[in-house]
């Protein structure tokens, strides 16, 4: 039972009847009875009815009141005096507030626990779900990145495999016959292809060893170098495939980015088949290059 003697002033209670009256003040929480007919409360398991001589606003289900309780025989009658709400609590001093809260918690513990558990469970579930979603998103992003890297690696490997020139060591000798010598007119072509293959493999190896240049570097100056018999490099070559056209007099190359272009670009270097046969290679050299408004793309002088 809460000590409500200090509330006498606010309630207009006669001090002379304070002791008997104070013992009859209770904090009651009202609820619907089992018959679902009356709004009642209880003290120590004994039901408490709202006094028929109470003419104020009847307590609603769930309301908490400070009541003057009188007993008549086996029945308790309560006269609601003050509704306990936030505004009212703010006006109380801390000691009374603490005692009231303790009393309320003790008498309604089970219900409060259920309510708090439900609310906590909901917020805990939401926090857990959010965390799981974030983790899932992160994992998905990592996997996607990994897949892209593997696909790029596969593409490079496939390119190497397609250009692989069969060697003598690949063949399985099934008989004791000596292998036929390579025809003399085939040797230069095979050698040329092997050179090209080696050149391209070196390029792949170098590009895999170094981080690829990013496209976020911004527009690059127009500049091109011939770095190999069939290789042309420029900082402007930032895409994966290009359209490359040569002039019939073999003086000019026009380079334009094209998603479906026939020329592959790896680490800003174009690999052009047969460039050496059309324009002999005399070692690494810088090439004159400029943007062409007439043709579009980059025009390179060989």
């Amino acid at each position, binding site marked *: 039972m809460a000590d409500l003697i200090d509330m006498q002033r606010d309630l207009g209670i006669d001090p002379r009847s304070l002791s008997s009256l104070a013992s009859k003040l209770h904090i009651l929480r009202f609820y619907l009875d089992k018959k679902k007919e009356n709004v009642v409360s209880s003290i120590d398991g004994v039901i408490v009815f709202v006094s028929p001589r109470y003419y104020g606003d009847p307590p609603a289900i769930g309301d908490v009141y400070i009541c003057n309780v009188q007993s008549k025989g086996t029945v308790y009658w309560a006269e609601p005096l003050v509704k306990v709400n936030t505004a009212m609590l703010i006006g109380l001093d801390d000691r009374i507030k603490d005692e009231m809260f303790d009393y309320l918690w003790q008498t309604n513990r089970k219900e409060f626990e259920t309510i708090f558990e439900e609310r906590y469970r909901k917020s805990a579930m939401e926090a857990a779900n959010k965390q799981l979603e974030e983790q899932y998103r992160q994992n998905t992003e990592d996997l996607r990145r990994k897949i892209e890297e593997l696909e790029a690696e596969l593409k490079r490997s496939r*390119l190497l495999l*397609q*250009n692989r020139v069969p060697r003598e060591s690949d063949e399985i000798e099934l008989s004791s016959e000596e292998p036929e010598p390579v025809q003399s007119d085939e040797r230069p072509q095979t050698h040329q292809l092997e050179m*090209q293959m080696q050149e391209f493999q070196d390029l792949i190896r170098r590009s895999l060893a170094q981080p690829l240049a990013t496209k976020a570097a911004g527009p690059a100056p127009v500049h091109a170098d011939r770095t190999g018999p069939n290789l042309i490099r420029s900082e402007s070559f930032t895409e994966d495939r290009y*359209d*490359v*056209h*040569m*002039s*019939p*007099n*073999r*003086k*000019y*190359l*026009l380079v334009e980015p094209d998603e479906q272009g*026939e*020329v*592959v670009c790896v680490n800003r270097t*174009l*690999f*052009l*088949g*047969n*460039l050496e*046969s*059309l324009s002999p290679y005399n070692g690494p050299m810088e090439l004159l290059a400029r943007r062409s408004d*007439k*043709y579009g793309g980059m*025009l390179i002088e060989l």
Partner: protein
Amino acid sequence: MTLFADHTYSRVMVFIDYRNVYEGVRFGLEGTELDLSRLTRILVGDRDLVGAYIFDGIPKQTDSDDHMPEKTRAYHNFVREQGFRVIARESVVKQEGKFVQKEVDVSLACEMLEHALMNHFDVAIVVSGDRDFVPAIQKVQSAGKRVEVASFSNELNQECKRAADVYYTLDDLPIMAMRSPVDQGGDARWPI
């Protein structure tokens, strides 16, 4: 520097004598492919292209196993997909040991003249250096049309160059497509 100004509203028709052009790039450019689409775009520039024709012959099947007619037809289908109108005459005959086209030049001349008289274009671009086209060029010019000629210097007849209002040499134009050695093969895109 020419007398003529290019306007974006000028209607242009292109007439390509395929064999003449092909002979200009047949040797010395192995591993590249003549890109007629790019050639046409460069010659037309910003002007309004209203039609592009390719005139070619289809060889008869010989005893050799090279499937020339099929390859030719496949190439014609390929350039049709690019938007060209292909007029192919089945009229390649053998004279003195080599194949010679018949009817193709006259087909080109007739087509060009007909379109000129029907006012279907303002400018005709003839991609050929063959002197046989000179009379047709002059008749089209008489109809009030401009005629431009484009050819390779090794396939150009000077009379044809003189007859044209504007002449372009194809030697400097980047029209030979190159590729990385990934899918080189005998598919229909390679000229025969």
